[in-house]
């Protein structure tokens, strides 16, 4: 005896007909009890967050303001990205806070897990307005970040002589080569163009391109000139290159940015950006020869 399987007919929800105009639907959506509080929380957090971008910069500049075009570009990018991320963070926090706090009675407390759900209309299987708006908004945001990032990357690469050819124009100043060696837990610097003089602090002339040949004799370190926006790995057995043009006189910080052992936190030294005459004098005092 064969059994006959009868597939029960599933009653498809009726497609909404006579849909209201988009403006009316938007108005209805905004009048939902949970939308307004979330939008308000979102707006408040966004407005409160925007000044935070400058707070980030304030702490970034705790040891000194940017001393090179590279660091200026990096700070600009951080500022813009922090501001752009504000609304995204705000909407996440707003939903979280509303879900967490809207438990009482009143307009903020109408979503009660303990109570029966409100009468709802037929399920909406798609909402092309919402889909298009979401895709458009996120695409514009992502495209903005990508384009901005690529432009800044190209600018910073040029400023840091990612391609040495970029500073070899007919009128371009010749960069000073500096060999940087990291080891647990000190930095040493050698100036091959100035008679191979060596030092434990970096002394460089202002407005002159510097080209760093960075390596390590033990573990991986990371050569980081904080206020000049230079940061590149120092790998044992390999040489990595980067560069910068310091544009501000003063003494700035060099640190290791790669956890490298017991005294990693103490692996720091100074860079002194001086005038060309002061640099020439320093080279002479160190027993070197000025060749550039």
């Amino acid at each position: 005896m064969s059994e006959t399987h009868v597939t029960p007919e599933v009653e498809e929800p009726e497609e909404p007909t006579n849909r209201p105009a988009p403006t009316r639907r938007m108005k209805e959506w905004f009048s939902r009890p949970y939308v307004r509080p979330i939008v308000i929380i979102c707006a408040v957090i966004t407005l409160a967050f925007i000044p935070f971008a400058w707070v980030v910069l304030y702490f970034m500049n705790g040891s000194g303001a940017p001393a090179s075009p590279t660091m200026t570009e990096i700070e600009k990018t951080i500022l813009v990205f922090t501001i752009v991320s504000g609304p995204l963070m705000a909407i996440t926090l707003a939903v979280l806070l509303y879900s967490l706090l809207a438990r009482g009675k009143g307009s903020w407390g109408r979503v009660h897990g303990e109570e029966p759900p409100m009468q709802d209309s037929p399920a909406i299987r798609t909402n092309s307005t919402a889909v298009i708006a979401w895709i458009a908004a996120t695409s514009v945001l992502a495209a903005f970040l990508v384009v901005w990032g690529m432009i800044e990357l190209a600018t910073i690469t040029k400023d840091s002589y990612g391609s040495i050819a970029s500073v070899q124009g007919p009128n371009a100043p010749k960069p000073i080569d500096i060999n940087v060696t990291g080891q647990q837990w000190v930095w040493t610097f050698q100036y091959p163009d100035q008679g191979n003089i060596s030092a434990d602090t970096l002394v460089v002339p202002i407005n002159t391109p510097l080209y760093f040949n960075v390596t390590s004799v033990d573990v991986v370190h990371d050569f980081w000139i904080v206020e000049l926006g230079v940061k590149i790995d120092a790998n044992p057995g390999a040489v990595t290159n980067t560069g910068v043009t310091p544009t501000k006189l003063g003494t700035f910080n060099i640190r290791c940015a790669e956890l490298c052992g017991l005294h990693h936190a103490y692996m720091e030294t100074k860079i002194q950006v001086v005038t060309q005459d002061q640099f020439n004098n320093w080279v002479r005092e160190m027993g070197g020869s000025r060749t550039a």
Partner: protein
Amino acid sequence: MKRALFTIITVLIGVIVVAGSALWLYAIQKPSPAYAATVVGTANTPQGVVKHATMTLDIHPNSGPGVPNPPGVPTSEVDAGGWPFYSQTSLQFPAHTLVTITVHQYDGASTVWNPYFAGVHGTVGNTAVFNGKSASSINPANVAHTFTIHQFPQANQPYFFVSVPMLAVPNNAKNLANGFPAPQTITFSFMTGAPGKYMWNCEDPCGNSYQDFGGVMSQHGYMSGTVTVV
């Protein structure tokens, strides 16, 4: 409201656990007692007449009969294979003083990876006296250890860098009656500035494991320590 309260309490418990762990780890640290340089008089320097202090350090190739344990390291933790160490690691110098350090070095040579540290840096005249002879550097192949003082990340303290290579005892050196070879004697002087806190360590890899940077090169109490200028 109850849920918010639970959330806050959970976060607070997390903060207390993390902060408590950090404080506990900080409290159980037992740095070896400070070893202070002795002021012996005054000295004429380019900076004028200043106090003159002296200090003596030993570098032992390992612990054993007649050799003390590394500072702050109990016998039970002394490596059986023998690790080299400085006799004192928490050093203290008076501020604005000419400090003269004499090191008796008993250990053999190891490879100095960076020739910069075969040179003398930051001392008076950038020289040191090796067994009675003044020099600004030694053969990198004859370096046993270095005594290198450098920066400590503390704001508003003067920069301080001193590095002196420690001459190695030759491999064929004969032991004296006390069972040890005659040590190399290295003497150097430097000026201290304003009060501050720094660290020192050996920059000549003398440990084990990768590139000789393990063991004593990565633990407190053997080849590294603090320098406090008071």
